[in-house]
């Protein structure tokens, strides 16, 4: 079996099970039944943001290769600037905290935890009686990807594992080279600014805080997972601290923009909290 296929099937298995457990525990059977009954209508209601997200994802899948070429030829080569800015921070993280157990933890969080973190809120917010939150979430995802793609093209930078292999071990790919096949399908593995892992995780984390009254149990879990993914990007030697900071800024921007865009469609502002 090709390594990509085996990673994908194990990913589907694990994330699928986690989603099942989390749905029952966090969303609750009542809302799940309601969701099941009402699924088609709700999906129809959020068709516009959903279509936007799909368009962005397809554009990213098709255009990424050529944009990468544009970036290499005309983009700002900023690897040296990022390194000059933060120096050996990532090397320090690895040297200080590196241990086989943590490597295993962060590797699985980076791949499995991340996919779960992105998938679950979609289900959870779709299960809410009002679709405002899920619309905002989908819009925020789309914005992250779209703005991220532009930034990738404008800035061309290699990550710490590619620049200082003598100090930063490429932990994820050294211990699980099969993951490389997967992440390579989703992202250009070389171009690192900003960290899209960070921005999407922080987006989910921010939404989890904003919707804490709906899903009080989800908030700490999401915060924990999101923080872990953010640390994992640096611990595994994939991203610079600069990428992470830029990713966080991108996430906060995308969330606030999504609130503006979706509210602009005439939804009532306090829908989110007042349902209880």
């Amino acid at each position, binding site marked *: 079996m*090709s*390594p990509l296929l085996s990673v994908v099937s194990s990913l589907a298995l694990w994330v699928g099970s986690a989603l099942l457990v989390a749905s029952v525990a966090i969303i609750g059977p009542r809302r799940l039944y309601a969701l099941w009954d009402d699924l088609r209508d709700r999906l129809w209601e959020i068709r516009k943001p959903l279509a936007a997200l799909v368009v962005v994802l397809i554009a990213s899948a098709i255009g990424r*290769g050529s944009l990468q070429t544009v970036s*290499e*030829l005309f983009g700002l*080569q900023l*690897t*040296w600037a990022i*390194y*000059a800015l933060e120096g050996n921070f990532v090397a320090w993280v690895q040297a200080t905290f590196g241990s086989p157990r943590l490597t295993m933890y962060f590797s699985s969080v980076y791949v499995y935890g991340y996919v779960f973190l992105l998938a679950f809120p979609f289900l959870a917010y779709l299960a809410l009686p009002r679709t405002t939150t899920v619309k905002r979430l989908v819009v925020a995802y789309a914005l992250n990807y779209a703005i991220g793609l532009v930034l990738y093209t404008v800035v061309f930078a*290699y990550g710490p*594992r*590619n*620049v*200082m*292999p*003598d100090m930063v*071990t*490429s932990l994820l*790919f*050294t211990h699980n*080279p*099969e993951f*490389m*096949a997967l992440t*390579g399908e989703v992202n250009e*593995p*070389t171009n690192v600014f900003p960290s899209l892992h960070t921005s999407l995780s922080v987006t989910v984390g921010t939404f989890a805080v904003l919707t804490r009254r709906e899903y009080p149990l989800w908030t700490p879990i999401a915060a924990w997972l999101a923080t872990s993914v953010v640390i994992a990007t640096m611990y595994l030697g994939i991203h610079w601290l600069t990428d992470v900071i830029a990713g966080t800024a991108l996430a906060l921007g995308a969330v606030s923009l999504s609130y503006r865009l979706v509210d602009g469609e005439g939804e009532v502002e306090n829908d989110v909290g007042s349902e209880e």
Partner: protein
Amino acid sequence: MTRQVSRRELLAGTGIAALSAGCLGRTRNIAGRDRPSQLTLEINAPPADRDPNAIRIARHLAENLDAVGVDARISTLGQTDLRRKVLINHNFDVYVGQFREAEPFDPDAMYGFTHSRFVAEAGWQNPFGFTDINGVDELLASQRRAEGDDRREAVADLQRTLGELQPFTVVAFPDPLTAVREDRFENWTNRQPLSVGGLLGLERSDAAGGDADGNTTESGDETVDGGTNETAGSDGTADGGNETTDGNETEGGLIDDNPLTDGDEAGDAATLRLVTTDERITQNWNPIAAEYRRYGTFTSLLYDRLALVDDGEVIPWLAADWKRVGDAGIEISLREADWHDGEPVTTEDVAFTYEFLRDTSMGTTESPVPTPTFRGRVSAVESATAVDETTVRLTLDDVNGAVGVRALQVPILPKHVWEERTGMATIAGFEFDAETTEAVVTNNENPIGSGPVRFVEASPEESVAFERNPDHFLVRSADGNRSAGDTADPLAGIPERFRGKPAFDRLEIEVMGSDVAAVQAVGDGRADATVSNLGPDSVPRIGREADARLVTGQSGGFYHVGYNTRRAPLSNPRFRAVLASLIDKRTLVDAAFDGYAEPAASPLAATPEWVPSDLLWEDREADPVHPFVGESGSLDAETARDRLREAGYRFDEEGQLLAPGR
């Protein structure tokens, strides 16, 4: 750049004050001077995923440069962009790279690399912009003419001069490590496993003769072998010799089976699968493109050369034979061969190739546009003419035999394809650069060569597939000979190990994300061998993979630090000498190559018979010409600064090296 801005700020700030004070003249005298600022050097190297060793050398140099007060910036670039920047645009300060010869080479390789007549050309010819007309140029010219001891002397002096002037600093000759598995193909030599000769010399394993399932039963034996060989290999190349003999014995046993497996038995078992981290072979098949060719191994399988050199042995290849005629002539008789599109290979094609490589515009542009690779080789040929249907005459430019043989090693191109590419390169009909022809920039999709493999398909940045060329003279003549038993052997001069080859029906090369992933693919049985460089993270893995084995050999592709001598202060040989002494080659070999490399002072160190004893590294701890300033890895920055001061450079109070005027 920064200097300009700061000067402008200064002018703006002082302008009004100066006017009111009324001492405009004196202010102009001061403000008109460029204020010195810290020297910035940009070091270009490919990222670790693409080449795990080069970036480590770059980091080492950058750290030591920082320590002596130079602002060193590492710029990581993809291989193609790096080459374009360095070789084509000459827009660089310092780069870290490998020489383009895969195998130990004749000293004349330095002609193209360092002769000043090539400073204005784009490509592998003198990328440094280095000029030493009375020293290096003279010596390069005389080693071309001289024979015997005279040549040896000239080559020794050449190395001494290059060592002194350091247009580039040789760091080390890496062992061309590759992880292989032998359940499908064997006879991986410990000399040049991945050269044209190495790949053509492969044999199908016994187990692979059946079907793919046979692999599992066979692997038990292989494991034991693999384990011992691995440890033997890491001890040194001396043990490697045994390995090769083993391989040859197996070859002897296999020869009888060969005609059977050679034939129509297609399918998965006859596919040689290689993995690489270098995506360029999936994008471009232009044998003369400097940006895309590493050693040119696969384009050499596509495009035959007149002569092939395998392990130091000169083998008449597309040329059946040649003889010197008079002082300067070589008369070459061609083998009967066809291009992949069915057209016959003619003497016209050969004559065209030499003319074309000297000027790819074939005289249609104001000044010639020479080939960016093989430039040194074709510069030895004055003219090439087709005498009759099987004979070509090359008129050499007063060169000795060895240089003449080197001139035979260029890819022979089909005239009917390449004569259409002599026009100026255009983008959407617009001429972009008068110095560039279509031939130099084409990706050469669907390459038409005459070599033992043909192009099949490719998906860029992922994979490429070639197939065995059933019409190649290695195959066609091998079969024909058996049935007819003709008078003259059409394969005269071709060693037994290449007859009827290649042993694979299909050659697939897949791009991997990193050297670690490449080794993993071999370990998992998804590939037969790795092609690209392996770094210190991946080499130990080979020992842990049961079916994988480490083979190595001798490389000509030395790692070096190249300087753009067009730019101050890199234009100053004294400054370059100090840079050279900032590189601790011994420590780098241990840290960046895991010991799998030989530190070197001379670019010819792979052929020690050419190196004078004062330049041989042997058991030395430090470089014989520019020893490292400091002790095993830790730099003595103060001494290094003193050397720079002695050379006339100055520092500010913070210890920053001040950039001299450019």
